[in-house]
């Protein structure tokens, strides 16, 4: 807890960057980047999160313990999402079922 007192200016600058990033992410949404729209949106959100965590929440000055706890939290969330997604993504890899084997094909109507 006994953290250094951060100048008000720093907080203000962080807020301005956050606001700027918000405008940026909104703007980028109007540009066609294909699948990279999602990537850009998430990358910007991630940077904003880092700003909040490091500056507003003061993790910049926190102990290693706090960092480990925080990273563990996000890591576990990543595990949940990664393993679940792995199931959905790989379901269609299984070989296509064998062709149908009964009577001769009918003529198309």
């Amino acid at each position, binding site marked *: 807890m006994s953290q250094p007192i951060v100048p008000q200016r720093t907080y203000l600058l962080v807020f301005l960057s956050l606001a700027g990033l918000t405008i940026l992410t909104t703007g980028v949404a109007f540009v066609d980047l294909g699948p990279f729209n999602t990537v850009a949106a998430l990358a910007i959100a991630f940077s904003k999160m880092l700003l909040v965590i490091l500056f507003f929440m003061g993790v910049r000055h926190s102990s290693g*313990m706090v960092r480990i706890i925080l990273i*563990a*939290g996000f890591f*576990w969330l990543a*595990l*949940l999402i990664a*393993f*679940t997604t*792995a*199931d*959905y*993504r*790989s*379901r269609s*890899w*299984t070989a296509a079922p064998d062709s149908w084997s009964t009577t001769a094909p009918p003529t198309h109507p």
Partner: protein
Amino acid sequence: MSTATLEPRVRAPRNYLNADYGWKSWLFTVDHKRIALLYLVSISFFFIIGGSFAVLMRIHLVEPGGALVQPETYNKLFTLHGIVMIFFFLIPSIPAVLGNFLVPLMVGARDLAFPRVNLLSWYIYIVGGTFTLYSAIAGGVDTGWTFYTPYSSTYSNTQVTPVVIGVFITGFSSILTGLNFIVTIHKMRAPGLTWYRMPLFLWAMYATSIIMVLGTPVLAITLFLLGLEHLFHVGIFSPALGGDPLLFQHLFWFYSHPAVYIMILPAMGVVSEIIPCFARKRIFGYKIVAFSSVAIAVLGFLVWGHHMFVTGQSVYAGLIFSLLSFLVAIPSAIKVFNWTSTLYKGSISYEAPMLYAMGFIGLFTMGGLTGLFLASLATDVHLNGTYFIVAHFHYIMVGGAVMGYLGGIHFWWPKISGRKYPNGWAALAAAIIFIGFNLTFFPQFILGYLGMPRRYAFYPAEFQVLNVMSSAGATVLGVGYLIPLVYLIWSMRYGPIAEPNPWGATGLEWKTPSPPPTENFAEIPVVTEEAYAYAPQEAAGD
């Protein structure tokens, strides 16, 4: 009731039990020891309820056509048995009773880091339990404790809502307990109590707390979504409404598989305390045993998909989950080997807690090894959803966790109550439970392999012999569980007064009177030796 005894209660020194009287002093207490007793009473109540459901089920299954109740009622019995036993007995059992009582004593602190949060967690548990009891009284619930969608969300017309709310609420009790333990173990250790001097019970509680804190919120949000779907009939998991039922299973097992480790890790911690004490030996491979707890907690999160090998999960995901499930078996095996080696060249005595601990090792070994059948893809296809599964997890959760819990209760009972219980009765109960347990659940392995599916209210006649054997064993097991209830209650009044350290054990909890005073220690102790320093000082360096 007469004054025949020469131990008048007035002479008893002030301790946490006689510090204050009246119901208020219990219901508004923030003393971790009193809260532990509140939990002890509540989980015993739920154990009796869940146990009676089990007895009814076993009686019913004596006849292939069902001897007792309608199939609908049978479904409610096994559902409530599962929900009550898992969420209201096993998960809080060792952590909330022994953990609450012992964690501050073992770290050498006056209380947990957040005593009021601790009391709050008991109230949350009671509120959750009330919802669940309400649902049982108001008609019961028949979804199975796994709440699989879409049956639970759109088809079942039983009391799903109150039960889901009850389990949801109780989850927060578990989260708060875990949070309290993590902070206490990190920040409140007595001077000199380094991580590697901590008793292994604390390591186990720490690993358990990690699971509680990281896993339980996912169960909460999953049940929240299930509740939304059930109440508002919006599609989340129901295919007819646009959802995917397998997603529910993923989210559910992300918590509920690690939950098995919430039950078994604390029991392992208890056993790691009992064995060194009754062998008068430092535990073999202290650090390995400590880290294997953490390894189980971490790896345990990555194996949930082995519950879904036949559900239509991708076979490749199944492959990864199978591999990781095998890996989690290794730290468990290491623990068993280390406990066994601790006995080597020890000085072993056979008091009741030791018998429970030995029973634990035996049953857990069998439960763990039969887990290999289910981690293996090819055999799981046949065994999944059969009585083999039922037998396997009862070996782990009843043979393992409940044996560990009873062992712990017997080990620390003199500390908790300040009285001793009759050792002969306790040994007899341990033997009856061990035999009754095996009679009940071993036949179920064979039943499962033969193909009898679980959750069947009636079954083909060829399975009857084994079912009758299982039911007969359940009777023995039931008697075995009643005996400790009787002599432990008896001992509270008539048992001989316990000295501070009746077993000659190490650990800070034995360095304070039995029962401990409200503030735990007259003076905060300073730790200068390793855990389990049973050897004479001059030989300790060997």
